[in-house]
C-alpha cells in the first residue's frame, strides 16, 4: 500500500479513537500518520524500513508510542478481515515501532518526518560531502540517493558532487560512489606503506 493511503487510514483511525474518548492513543496515532504523509509516494514497507534507522529524539511531552502500539494487534485483526494487505501493513508498522515504544510519539514523529522529507539536490550533495570520510554514513546517504532519486535528479547530484556527467542512473551512482571509493583506496595505500619510504 502507498504511504499516502495508509496515512489517510491512520488519521481516520486516530479520529475514531478521539471520538471514543481515547485521547492519548488518538494523539499518538495522529503523530504516526504524519510520518507517512512525509513520503506519500513510498510504499508502507519502505517507510517502515526507514523507521528502524531513526535516531532517538530527546524526550518531550505527550503519549508514548507504546500507547499506539498496544492497539495495533486489535486494529490488525479487525481491519485485516476486510483488507488483508492493510492488516499486514499495520502489523509491519507495529513491528517497526516496537523498539521505540518508550519514546514520545510526537518527538519520534518529528524525527522521522525530518528523515523522510524529500531532500533537495543541494542537501544530498552537502550530506555526501560531509560524510566523505565516514564510510557508514556515506553508505547510508548513497543508499538514499539510489532509492529516492530518479535519473534526472541522480545526474544532478553526480555532477555537483563528483563533477562527472552521467548518462544513466548507474553511471551517476558509479560516479558518486567512485569519489568515496578513491579516498578509501588512498587510506588503504597509506596503511600499506606504513610510514616507510620508497628507498
Amino acid at each position, binding site marked *: 500500500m502507498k504511504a499516502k493511503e495508509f496515512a489517510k487510514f491512520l488519521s481516520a483511525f486516530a479520529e475514531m479513537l478521539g471520538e471514543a474518548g481515547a485521547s492519548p492513543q488518538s494523539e499518538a496515532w495522529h503523530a504516526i500518520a504524519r510520518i507517512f504523509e512525509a513520503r506519500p509516494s513510498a510504499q508502507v514497507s519502505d517507510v517502515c524500513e526507514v523507521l528502524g534507522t531513526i535516531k532517538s529524539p530527546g524526550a518531550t511531552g505527550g503519549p508514548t508510542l507504546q500507547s499506539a502500539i498496544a492497539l495495533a494487534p486489535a486494529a490488525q485483526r479487525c481491519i485485516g478481515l476486510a483488507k488483508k494487505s492493510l492488516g499486514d501493513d499495520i502489523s509491519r508498522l507495529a513491528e517497526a515501532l516496537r523498539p521505540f515504544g518508550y519514546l514520545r510519539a510526537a518527538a519520534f514523529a518529528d524525527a522521522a518526518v525530518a528523515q523522510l522529507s524529500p531532500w533537495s539536490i543541494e542537501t544530498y550533495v552537502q550530506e555526501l560531502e560531509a560524510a566523505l570520510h565516514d564510510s557508514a554514513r556515506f553508505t547510508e546517504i548513497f543508499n538514499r540517493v539510489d532509492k529516492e532519486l530518479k535519473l534526472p535528479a541522480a545526474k544532478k547530484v553526480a555532477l555537483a558532487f563528483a563533477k562527472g556527467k552521467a548518462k544513466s542512473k548507474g553511471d551517476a551512482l558509479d560516479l558518486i560512489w567512485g569519489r568515496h571509493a578513491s579516498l578509501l583506496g588512498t587510506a588503504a*595505500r597509506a596503511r600499506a606503506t606504513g610510514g616507510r619510504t620508497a628507498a
Partner: protein
Amino acid sequence: MFQSTSHAWWSEILQNIFAKSIGELIAARAAMLFRAVKSLFGRSPPQAPQALLELQRARSGSGWPREGKGIWVIDPISPPKIESNPHIPSAKILVVANAKGGVGKTTVTANLGARFAELAKASGRKPVLLIDLDFQGSLSSMCVAGGLGWLPSGDRDSNATHLISGDLAATDVANGIAMPATIVKNGSHPIQLSQLKVLTAYYDLAQAENRVMIEWLLGDRQYDVRFRLAELLHSNAVREAFSLIIIDSPPRLTTGAIQALAAGTHLLIPTILDEPSSEAVVTFIRQVERYREKGLCQGIKHVGVAATMVDPRGDYGVEETRLRDRLAAPTARGGAGGVAELLPASTYIHQSAAFRKTGGKGITYPLLGEGHIAARLKTSIRELADAVNREMS
C-alpha cells in the same frame, strides 16, 4: 665477524635495498670493497655496521620480517652549515619531481626554464640553470639541440655524476661546466637561448648514484652525501651566478633525487590527471613530508601539483575532484594533509603535437609559432611560470 659472513650478510642487506639480482651483484662488490677498506686501515670503519644495521628488516606481528625505515632516513642527518653572504640573494631552487614516471617532469622543467630565461633576459636578471638528474638524459638532449655535444666523451662522465659525487667546486658550477641551451629553427645552425644553461646527465649517473650511496653506507661519513648538492647550490658562487635553478628529478628516490630534495627550496609535482597518477602524487607527497620530519628537506616549500598532458577537449572534473580530495584529506586518512594544492586550470599543460614536432629541435616553448594551438600552449606555460613565480617570490 664481518669477514666470515661478509658476502651473505651484504647480500641480504643489499637485496633488501635493491631488486634481488642487483642486490647479489652489488653484495659481492660491497664485500670486496669492505675488505679492501679494512686491509687499508687495519680495522673496521666504525660507522659501517651501524649504518647497515639500521636497514635490517624488523620483526612484525605477522611473523614475517618487515622492511625498515629506509636508506635515506638513516641517522644522523646532518644538514651542512652554509656560511652565506647576506648581500647575495638566497638561492631559488625549484625541484620538479614525482616518483611516478611519464608524467611530464622533463617537459615541464625544460619549458619552465625557457620561460624563466625569457623573463630573466627581459628584466636583466642572471641566467637560469637547469640540472638534469635523470640518467636517461632526456632534459639534456631536449635542451641542447642541433648536435650531440652534450654527451660525455668516452673517457669522461656526465656533469651530473660529478655533481652528486662531490667532485665539483662551487666555482665550477657557477662559471664553467654548464652548457648553453640551444634550439634549431628552420634547419639552420643551433641558436643559443639567452640566459638558459644546463648541466647534463647520462647513463654513468646511474652507476654514480649507487656508488655514492654504497660508499656512504660503508662509512664514508666525512660529510653527509644527502647534502652534497645542497652545499654546492647554496654556495655564494652559485647564488651569485644564477637567478633560478630548476632540477629535473628522476622518477625514483635515488641518490640524485634525495640530494635534489635536500637542496630544493621549492617543489613542483607534475602529474597526469588520472587515477593511478593522482594516487602516486599523494604517496610521493607523504614521502617528502616524511623526509621533512626527519630533517632531510626541512626548507622545501610546495609550489603545487601541475597537471600535464591534458586533453583540451576532455572533461577532467571527476579526476580533478578526486585528486583535490586526496590532497586535502588528513594524513591520518592517507591524504596529503593539505600541504599542496592542484594548480589552477589555466596552468594545465595541454597535450599537443607541438611537443612531438619540436622533438630534436630543442625546447618547445621558444619554438612555438603563432597559430591558435601554439598560442594556447604558450599561454599555459606562461601561466604555470607565473604560478611558480608567485609561490617562489
